[in-house]
């Protein structure tokens, strides 16, 4: 599978193989294929229990003001000549929030002027968007979509470079879920070494 170095679906019943296609489509739709390095899914439809464990690659670096456009500071004014409009809207929101709406002007599509305020020296290094902030939320959302629907009782964990998810329509058997997730991580780490 493109992007994933380790991918496995364990199921206690026939039909689990469909989840290979489902997981691939969902990760692709959410642009997460290049971020997830390994994913192990466990499904027991009898109990029912769905567990997923994943390892991610280091996320992309943060988008800074200098990535959006060239910054020119002159006569107490800063002019940003926008090169890429992709992150223009979040950059404006960030500037309005930090410098005040009245002090940030956009006279035309590709120009942003900051005036009437002391121009910070490190303006070009200000962070517009940090993809790692929303990454785990996106991942957990994607896993929720992959999981069979109706598994409303769920437990999710994320930190460093790994995440796990366990869900059921009954109470999640914590001990069992922890064992399964630990086992998934052990297999994955052995394979990814």
């Amino acid at each position, binding site marked *: 599978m493109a992007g994933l170095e380790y991918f496995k679906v364990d199921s206690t019943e026939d*039909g689990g193989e469909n989840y290979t296609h489902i997981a691939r489509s969902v990760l692709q739709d959410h642009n997460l294929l290049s971020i997830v390095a390994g994913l192990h899914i466990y499904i027991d439809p009898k109990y029912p229990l769905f567990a997923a464990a994943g390892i991610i690659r280091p996320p992309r670096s943060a988008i800074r003001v200098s990535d959006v456009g060239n910054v020119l500071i002159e006569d107490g004014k800063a002019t940003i000549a926008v090169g890429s409009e992709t992150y223009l809207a979040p950059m404006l929101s960030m500037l309005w929030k930090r410098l005040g709406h009245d002090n940030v002007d956009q006279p035309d599509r590709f120009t942003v002027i900051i005036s009437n305020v002391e121009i910070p020296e490190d303006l070009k290094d200000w962070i517009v968007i940090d993809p790692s902030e929303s990454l785990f939320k996106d991942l957990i959302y994607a896993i929720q979509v992959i999981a069979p629907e109706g598994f409303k009782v769920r437990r999710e964990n994320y930190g460093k470079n790994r995440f796990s998810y366990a869900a059921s329509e009954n109470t999640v058997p914590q001990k069992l879920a922890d064992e399964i997730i630990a086992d998934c991580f052990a297999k994955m780490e052995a394979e990814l070494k």
Partner: protein
Amino acid sequence: MSLVPITYKGGVYQLDEVIDYIEDLGGYIVQRHNIANEVILQILMPSEDIERLKVFSRPLAGEVSESPLVGTEIAVVIPSLEIHHLPHSACDVAEYLRAHGSKSNMLGMARGFGKRISQMNDEERDLINEHDVAVFILGNFASCIEQKFEKFRRGINIPIILTGGPSREVLEQQTVPPVAGYVGNLGRFMHRTQTEADIARLDAVIEEVERVVSERRKELALDPLSVSPARLQMILQQEIPEIEDILAPAPVAVQLNGLRLKLSYPEYAERIRSLVIEDGITVGDVCDVLPSRMRDYVLIRIRPLSETNIVV
């Protein structure tokens, strides 16, 4: 005289003449779709006259083909309206049914998700029962379908087609008593149906629905309806001009044994009952005009000959 469902595809050139010819032969246009310069007519017409229509439309490059799903309203039932089923696979199935001539409605239950916790309420059940056929789109695991489907089928008195991830044989084994039709290998998926294998699975759904609808038509022919639903549609369109102002798709949805009219029941029920069909016989004499569970629409159920002793 048995009316056969067909589809006519052709250009706009001399279309009026084609429509006149169909009506002269005793046919009824159930639905008309204008797509760019092409027109698709869904027609119910006497079987012996189909050849005549083919000959008539040949110089106009019109195509006439049989489509058994014309004049049917089919419910595509999914456990919920969550992203797990939409837009794939439920919309794909509903759209494919529509492309083959039926009027398909998608019905997602409020609390149908899960296995142990899934439920269906009486409104949902009644709404499904207003259709000709219900296609249940369920998931990938046999044990889930077994437990879940038992709850869903209770109280459904129209033919059911069960689709799911396991093979047809497995689905057949789990459902006691059996339902009208099965389509296996069509579980939950999250991608667009565009490969040959995907389309083949949708074709299998159409094949099964066509088989079940044909059986239902044969059953109805044993005790014919007092008036053809297509004829009743034409009368309603002639007598109630307000139908022209309805913005809903298919303002009058033709079913196998009735119609759904998308006008307010409290306002129009009496007017519909008193419409004369022929020789003083009114709609109320041969039909039950009922409130539909879909908004405040009107549901017309045509009574069979054995009940009314009338055929118009």
